[in-house]
């Protein structure tokens, strides 16, 4: 096993907890805004780690660029999507949760 594979694999594995935590937040948090918060933040970091890890594993710069592009696009999309969901929820009169 070469060092690229090792580092890449470690990065991918490091990304996993973020997804798990994000999902946990989605399931356990009290309202739509906090859920969005958990999901978009944690998943974006997780995806970044996975993409970087896979890019290192692939060993080709072109592939690395493509994976990075995927990550950037996902960032933009999830930011916009989360914003839209939150705005719609707010417009429909869903109050943010307060403890």
């Amino acid at each position: 096993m070469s060092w690229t594979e090792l580092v890449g694999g470690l990065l991918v594995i490091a990304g996993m907890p973020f997804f798990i935590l994000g999902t946990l937040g989605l399931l356990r948090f009290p309202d739509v805004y906090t859920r969005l918060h958990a999901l978009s933040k944690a998943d974006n970091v997780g995806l970044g780690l996975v993409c970087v890890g896979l890019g290192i594993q692939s060993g080709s710069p072109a592939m690395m660029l493509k994976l990075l592009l995927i990550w950037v696009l996902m960032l933009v999309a999830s930011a916009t999507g989360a914003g839209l969901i939150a705005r719609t929820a707010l417009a429909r009169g869903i109050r943010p949760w307060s403890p």
Partner: protein
Amino acid sequence: MGLVGQVFDALLAIALVWLAWQATRAADLFRAVVSFIVFGLLMAVAWVRLEAPDIALAEAAIGAGATGALLLSALDRLAPRRGRSWARVWRADARTWVLWVPAVMALAGALTAAAWQLPAPGLGAVATGALEQSGVDHAVTAVLLNFRALDTLLEIGVLVLAAVAVWSMGPAPAASAPVMPSPTLPMLGRTLFPVFVLVAAYLLWRGSHAPGGAFPAGAVLGAGGILMLLAGAQPWIRSAEHGPWRAILSAGFAVMLFAAIVGALAGGAFFEYPAAIASHAILVLEVTAGMSIALLLFAVYLRGEPHPAADTDRQRC
């Protein structure tokens, strides 16, 4: 990959079955539609598992993307969200359990068994053998645009026809304005559209030697257009006769038809490209087919004839 792959496939299958059930049965229509969209996305994964990356690309863009957008916007107008009890939708009585469930299980089992017995000789060898004369290196593209180009012509015809039929049913409904406009959305539409064009061009270029080609490219571009529309961009098909847009919409179909006839006039059969120019002809066809698929998906998405009365000041755009 053996065991892990099997487990993955099994999980995927279970998720797909659940989503399909939700899509057809969920009490809430919105939930059903969203389940269907996720179903399409997961199907794309299944296509990859089945070594059909072309289909995966098309499914993600068309099956989940374009169809999903169509369904959601229709839903927006059809069903104001309203809670419905599960029982109202799914009324299981004795007859269901005695008659339907066993019959259905038997049918599914028989289908699986029958399909499992299939020898599936396949035309892979024949197609690979003919690939050299086809003008492209990627077998699926060769089948689509050379061996079975007639199917593709008629398929784009169906898409043109769908656009005509949808337009014939009346004026396009006014786009529903978002309740609370988001500043990021129009920006996203604007900045992402070049990316869509880039990805589409890349897929188109890849199509001659690897998975990709006109269909995924067209679908991606069309999905980009729909996203633009969702992001608040004005459809630019505006004047009474729709300016040159009707011609552009039907251009892909017309060019393919033209190529087919030229093949026949050159002494061959309908759609027979002379060997020397086959690869160029296919490239031209791919570009036009991809473009027209994109535009037609967009035209169909308008869900009606774009009407000139909506805003006269933009007629010339």
